């Protein structure tokens, strides 16, 4: 449905140029709920605005449903009006001088697709009913709460029956509880309409909760895209792994195809490779299991000293020391024992192994602290 090839975009700032998109490729299938996620400044909003036609890329090609809407050679440009999308903005962009009803009706009445007057009423009502705002339709939009404004923006976007719905951090201005509630509803609504959705957020939990597919962006590039579980379980680089949750990282050397030697001991891993090079092994805190002591030496089994533990309601997060390395674990039971000594185990299948670039380590340990 959306096909992006080698898209480049530079911004001119006071002290030179900044590349916001660096030769980016992306495919979004019809009916897919596609989430672009990344830290701020990664270029995700620029990408969305390029698709919407609010930003003109420098190079590359964008095709929507087989039709080229932007291309540098031969020069092609389709204006945002003619792209016929629905878009929900971060600020909602609810027109403050119009009522709820008029906000939804204006694009239908005066937009690119001229819709007969009688049909307009019916479609506005329908869209407002979908977001449960049909009773507030005559209210001035300035009198609405944040959540209601967000729903007006959503109703306005879906009322035009768009082929593609674009959403730019639509939930970032809502409070935490409302956000969880609304994200379920947005996904439900999108599926009900069968619309292709391109959704931008910086929140990895939001991304995983909503997406059919996620693309992680960093500094104008796509690091990886795929299903949420794939990105979480089988990231293709340490950055992706770090983005979706905390990881205990250790650098080491591969001594044989499936064994890695690190400072805290030997790891048996499922991800095989040639012995020799330096590697980075990592596993997520929730993969650390507390086992009863007295199993004797065995791969992936470590003696640890408990440093601290925090009760979060649904789980304990604890920090231990293995030799002089720090390690984090999550557990549903209290990690307690008389002499603060624990024995920990990690399944070989849960361990990620990446080739280690020399200067990546300090960067990673910095991000791990978050």
């Amino acid at each position, binding site marked *: 449905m959306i096909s992006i090839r080698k898209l480049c975009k530079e*911004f*001119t700032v006071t002290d030179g140029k900044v590349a916001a998109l660096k030769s980016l490729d992306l495919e979004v299938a019809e009916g897919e709920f596609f989430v672009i996620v990344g830290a701020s400044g990664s270029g995700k909003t620029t990408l969305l605005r390029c698709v*919407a*036609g*609010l930003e*003109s890329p420098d190079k590359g090609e964008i095709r929507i449903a087989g039709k080229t809407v932007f291309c540098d*050679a031969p*020069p092609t*440009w389709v*204006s*945002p*009006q*003619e*792209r*016929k*999308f*629905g*878009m929900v*903005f*971060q*600020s*909602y*962009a609810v*027109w*403050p*001088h119009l009522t709820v009803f008029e906000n939804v009706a*204006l*694009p239908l009445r*005066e*937009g*690119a*697709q001229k819709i007969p007057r009688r049909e307009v009423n019916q479609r506005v009502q329908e869209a407002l009913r979908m977001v449960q705002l049909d009773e507030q339709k005559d209210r001035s939009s300035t009198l609405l709460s944040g959540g209601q404004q967000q729903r007006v*923006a959503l109703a*306005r976007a879906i009322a*035009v029956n768009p082929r593609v719905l*674009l959403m730019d951090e639509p939930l970032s201005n809502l409070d935490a509880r409302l956000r969880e509630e609304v994200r379920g509803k947005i996904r439900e609504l999108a599926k009900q309409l069968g619309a292709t959705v391109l959704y931008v957020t910086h929140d990895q939990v939001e991304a995983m909760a909503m997406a059919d597919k996620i693309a992680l962006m960093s500094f104008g590039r796509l690091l990886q895209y795929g299903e949420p579980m794939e990105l979480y379980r089988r990231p293709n680089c340490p950055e992706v792994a770090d983005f979706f949750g905390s990881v205990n990282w250790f650098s080491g050397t591969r001594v044989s195809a499936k064994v890695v030697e690190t400072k805290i001991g030997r790891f048996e891993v499922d991800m095989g490779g040639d012995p020799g090079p330096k590697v980075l092994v990592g596993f997520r805190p929730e993969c650390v299991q507390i086992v009863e002591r007295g199993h004797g030496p065995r791969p992936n089994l470590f003696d640890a000293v408990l440093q601290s533990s925090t009760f979060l309601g649904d789980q304990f997060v604890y920090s231990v020391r293995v030799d002089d390395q720090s390690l984090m674990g999550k557990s549903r039971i209290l990690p307690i024992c008389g002499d603060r000594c624990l024995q920990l185990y990690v399944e070989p299948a849960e361990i990620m192994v990446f080739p280690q670039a020399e200067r990546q380590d300090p960067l990673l340990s910095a991000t791990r602290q978050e």
Partner: protein
Amino acid sequence: MEAVLRMPRLIATRLRASPMLLMLAALPMFVILGLVVALVWISFQTGIVGTPNATYTLANYAEIFGDPFVLKVFWNTIIFTLSTTFTALAIGLPISRLTERTRLPGKGLVYTIMTLGLLIPGIYTAMGWTFIAHVRIGFLNRWLMDVFSLDQGPINIATPVGMGFVQGLNLTALAFILTAQMFRAMNPSLEEAAKIHGLSFIGTLRRVTLPLAFPAILAAMIYMLTIGIATFDVPAIIGLGNRIYMLSTYVYLKANPPDSGLPQHGVTAALGTVMIFLALLLTWWYGQMLRQGHRYEVVTGKGYRPALIDLGGWSVVAWFFIALYFLATKLIPLLLIAYAAFTPYLAPPSYEMLSKMSLAGFYNLNWDLFWRGLYNTVLLVLTVPLITLLLSFSISWLIVRSRSRLRYLLEFGAFLPHALPEVIMAIGALLVALFVLPKIIPLYGSVWLIAIVYVISRIAFATRALNSSLLQIHRELEEAAYTAGLSPMRTSWRILVPLLRPTLMSVWIWSAILVYRELTVAVFLISQENITLPAVIWSYWFSGATNQAAAVTLLMTAVLTPLILIFWWFGRRQLMPES
């Protein structure tokens, strides 16, 4: 080649602007540029200027700087400008200090008086003060002569200092606004700290307040110098008849010599060029001062209010001062104009004169001329503000919304009319209409020539007002309309115009009032056909028919009053620093 092919699309998409919008924004830029270039070009010509037969020479400049009379004019202008600035600040600064930092009762009324001060035309004050203090006919002089049995009036308003005083009264409201803004920006805790650490009131004023305020006061001074140097209306009303010339009136004399002399357009252009130079210099200096002033702006917490000084019994004195200002600049001049309109000749009010009051002055008016003036003025009031808004809106939108570097050029272009006084634009327009355009578009003598200059000179103010309002409208409100399928035109009409309505209204009515009362440009560009109402007043006045001039002024006020009331309704808050 490829780059060339990409250009139009790039400009259009980068700016996301239709070619029409670009044209609307560029049009005034070209007009301004055209006026300035023509002026400078003609200033280097003698002979049949503006044609290929003209000789290029520096003779015009030699004539200006070699003529002792011109040097005298320069000197007059300097004295006049200094007197203007001093008067305006001497009255405006204390009043702004009183309203911003004391518990003066009835502050709302002060703002009202000051807004009126902005709106009432300068020629009213000038005419009124001629009636008060003209050396021969001034009522105050006549009275003083009677009381002290003098041979000659002791006060002469027709001097550079006197005219500067009158123009200073006109600019007091402006000085008030500029300095009130300064007091708003100045952190009062700096003064409080001085007080707490033992400095006396005078000590605090001398060591803290004034040094802190100095850059801003200096900036206000330079701003008023810029206006003063090119003021035409007051020197024309008071000075021309008494042969006391300023730069602006001298330029007028060169372009419209008395007694069927030949206009010296080369000299006019050279004087205009010198004035452009002075104006740009002062504007640059003003920018420098403003920047320095901002250095001292210490950020205060939101909702932080300075401790206001209790005036006690002194508030009576303060109000006496403000009332005196109001009487001297507005009420007495207006009353005297009304009085003069109903009397057959000029004489101080007396019982005898009251019995001679009649409507004769109105019957003797050239009504044909009056109706023509009113017709042209109404035409201008109806068209100029609308065109100004359309052009300024295009310019502002491009300045605020586009990311192209061209926007800096636009910003500068839109600022230029602010730096260039109306006199210069009037001369430029006169020369262009006479020598550059006549074969292409015969604009000379047409009311549209006046309209063009009015539009251009109002653009600086309008774009600045629109820029700041447009900045407050979130970009996404527009983008939401684009993605929803609304064309740029419809988006402007349905989204931006409604949201900008308060600003658009106040800019419209403010431009309308300025157009209605404008004298300078009109006087330079009038002919029999395109005369405006203020120019009708002026021509009566200039020909010595003082009472008829007063009658027309009174009629003009009758139309102005409702305009001012409309302005009250919409625009006051936009212009006044009222909290």
